[in-house]
């Protein structure tokens, strides 16, 4: 339910980038969303479309990249995709694994028509 606010924050970043590039049009923004970010992709996409519609930002696409949760084992350094909330290392069964990706809520890139 906070996706509209997040969409607005993405749009603010696009606006700032556009101001730095007079005469250019930003046509796409790429955003990474981690599994643990707590953001619903459909709601974000919908909110973004609503905010962009009938503004000077059009045409502007939002491309979302989902980043799965990856754990790294502190014992053997093995990295694995964590599923079913089982943090154990599949190789050495150690529980001491740390999250190395999956928390992202980042703007990765923008595509600019100069």
């Amino acid at each position, binding site marked *: *339910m906070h996706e509209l606010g997040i969409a607005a924050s993405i749009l603010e970043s696009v606006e700032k980038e556009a101001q730095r590039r007079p005469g250019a049009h930003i046509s796409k923004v790429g955003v990474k969303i981690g599994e643990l970010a707590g953001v619903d992709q459909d709601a974000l996409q919908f909110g973004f479309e609503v905010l962009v519609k009938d503004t000077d930002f059009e045409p502007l696409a939002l491309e979302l990249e989902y980043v799965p949760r990856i754990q790294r084992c502190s014992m053997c350094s093995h990295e694995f995709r964590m599923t079913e909330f089982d943090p154990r290392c599949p190789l050495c069964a150690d529980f001491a694994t740390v999250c190395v990706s999956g928390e992202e809520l980042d703007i990765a890139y923008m595509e600019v028509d100069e």
Partner: protein
Amino acid sequence: MNRIAVEKKVLNENQILADQLRERYRQNDVLCVNLVSSPGSGKTALLERTLERMDKSSRVAVLTGDLQTENDAKRLAKFGFPVKQITTGGTCHLDAKMIGRHLEGWPLEDLDLLIVENVGNLVCPSSYDLGEDAKIVLLSTTEGEDKPLKYPSIFFKSELMLLTKIDLLPYVPFKAELAKENARRVHPGMEIIDVSSTTGEGLDHWMEWLSARQKKRANV
């Protein structure tokens, strides 16, 4: 068409403000904790019992967030410590800007502990850094044991889980061990304390956690 790398956080503006708050807490040696839970898990009741147990000379203040009403601030003001209500007017979480605005007029050098009671919501508050030292998530025995699995983000990001309303365990089908196991599946090694704001059980342990966390902060 030209693709440019940006690599910055979507909530960059919030992050900047949160980092500024964090730095102010550090300079003034203030421990800030952010309490998060579903509506009705007992955040305000826990705070009542917490403030009641504080020494009158304690340098503690509370910011309490809700969509509407000043009810929580009124409940908490009785204990004589500074309390401010943040009414978000519909927004489902607190953000760093709201915290900064409501800290105006409170000299941080006069505080040792700032408790933020977030809006009752397990989803959105997990995305917004408030500059706190620790998020603390509450789960009550009248909810489902699988909440940590349904809302992993906040359980992953919280340093401590308080299992509240444990006095009700004989009357509800809630399996406490299963709930804790679920929390630790999402967040291996997570600290968990059982509490009841009604009977007072576990509150000493919680108060000890707070004071230990303050000491740990002072040593960082």
